[in-house]
């Protein structure tokens, strides 16, 4: 453990409620470089509570980078300056003594701020509800490896399925587009035999739901890929475009 503490100036977004006007509030802190970003926020909250002040509301759950709850925009970057990690995996040693750090919530029309740094990400769930599944009649347990799937295909599908649905793609996109998220969810099934029966219906429904939630359109800046904590590739967006195009041409759905 390092004894040298970092003196930091934090500018944290405080907003009492969804309809209230928010503002950046300054907090001067001293933290150990070994602390995680969320531990630092915990320490601020402890001192705020001691002084009978409202603690800062932020989301976190697993604190090991797999649940996708802890999205914060740190100095303009979702999940902070270190690539391929979530906010909870970010440690203070990546900052320098005297740094000013801006902490903001994800900004998107589809993600309204509920309080402070907490945003409502149910629009992502709404998209999942219309296509983030395969319909399989449950019965006896099937034999393993009954359906042959090439290793590289399985790996690609798994890479897409690594999406934790944190919403950093939306937060980083200049258009607040959810294309990377939707493309990962479409791709993980589109690549596997089990996903084929519902492939057309799934992509049509999920894109429609995405558009209804008020996300912007993708303009291929690829900021999403750069900021994604799981490194979801934009080749998934290309697959989504392909699948959507072919589904619209081939499917018998005219509504």
């Amino acid at each position, binding site marked *: 453990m390092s004894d040298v503490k970092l003196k930091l100036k934090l500018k944290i*977004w405080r907003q009492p409620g969804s309809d209230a006007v928010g503002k950046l509030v300054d907090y001067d802190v001293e933290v150990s470089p070994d602390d995680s970003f969320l531990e630092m926020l915990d320490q601020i909250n402890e001192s705020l509570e001691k002084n009978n002040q409202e603690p800062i509301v932020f989301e976190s759950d697993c604190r090991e980078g797999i649940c996708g709850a802890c999205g914060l925009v740190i100095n303009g970057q979702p999940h902070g300056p270190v690539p391929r990690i979530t906010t909870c995996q970010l440690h203070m040693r990546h900052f320098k003594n005297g740094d000013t750090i801006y902490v903001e919530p994800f900004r998107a029309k589809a993600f309204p701020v509920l309080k402070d740094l907490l945003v409502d990400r149910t629009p992502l769930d709404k998209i999942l509800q219309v296509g983030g599944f395969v319909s399989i009649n449950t019965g006896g347990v099937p034999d393993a490896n009954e359906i042959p799937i090439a290793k590289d295909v399985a790996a690609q599908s798994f890479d897409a399925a690594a999406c934790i649905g944190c919403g950093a793609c939306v937060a980083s996109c200049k*258009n607040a*587009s959810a294309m990377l998220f939707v493309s990962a969810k479409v791709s993980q099934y589109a690549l596997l035999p089990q996903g084929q029966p519902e492939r057309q219906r799934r992509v049509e429904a999920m894109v429609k739901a995405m558009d209804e939630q008020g996300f*912007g*359109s993708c*303009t291929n800046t*690829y900021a999403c890929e750069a900021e994604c904590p799981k490194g979801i590739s934009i080749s998934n967006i290309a697959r989504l475009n392909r699948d959507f*195009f072919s589904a619209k041409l081939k499917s018998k759905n005219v509504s």
Partner: protein
Amino acid sequence: MSWLLESLNSSIGKKILMAVTGISLILFLVGHLSGNMALFANDGGKSFNAYAEFLHHLPGLMVIEIILASVFLLHILNALRLWVENKKARPVKYAVNASSKNSTIFSRTMVQTGSIILIFLIVHLKNFWYEYVILKSNDNLFEIVVETFKDPVYSGLYILAMILLGFHLNHGFQSAFQTFGWNHKKYTPFINFLGAIYSIAMAVGFASMPIYFLFFYGGN
């Protein structure tokens, strides 16, 4: 046909419309630049005027012009619509903009470069097409070109617009392929390279005209 309109109105449909019109304009620029190379024939404009005459008397010219104008309009109007919609998708901006850390300047400034190209296009049409085809102020198009490029301010702005056109094309070229879903480990790096070469060629090619007439033509 409602499914078709609905598809084109979806977020991906708008991308596809952008890409199809963009690729069409990319091809148009190749033709436009190739033909204009006749300006460098150094024969007092004979070749260039002959080329202009040939285009002017092309059978079905009207149809080609209407198609070209529609492609331009679709590209521009669709872009404006996307820009407005995409602005609305993030009503509250970030206090810190770190977009330079996750994306290229070319991709982020498509609206700005596109708007400047649109202004350029209007001036460009006024100076050449409107003077030559509509007003018929001079039936020697080469002379119009020489006269127009004599103005260093005009030529300077022309060159600047062409550099920004290069920026616009550099993103647009590879972006169109991504939109069509043609992202491949083997070919995407080549497409990106080709796009960069193409946009440099277009910027340099078109900018070479004002540079030639400003500095090297007619012994001035």
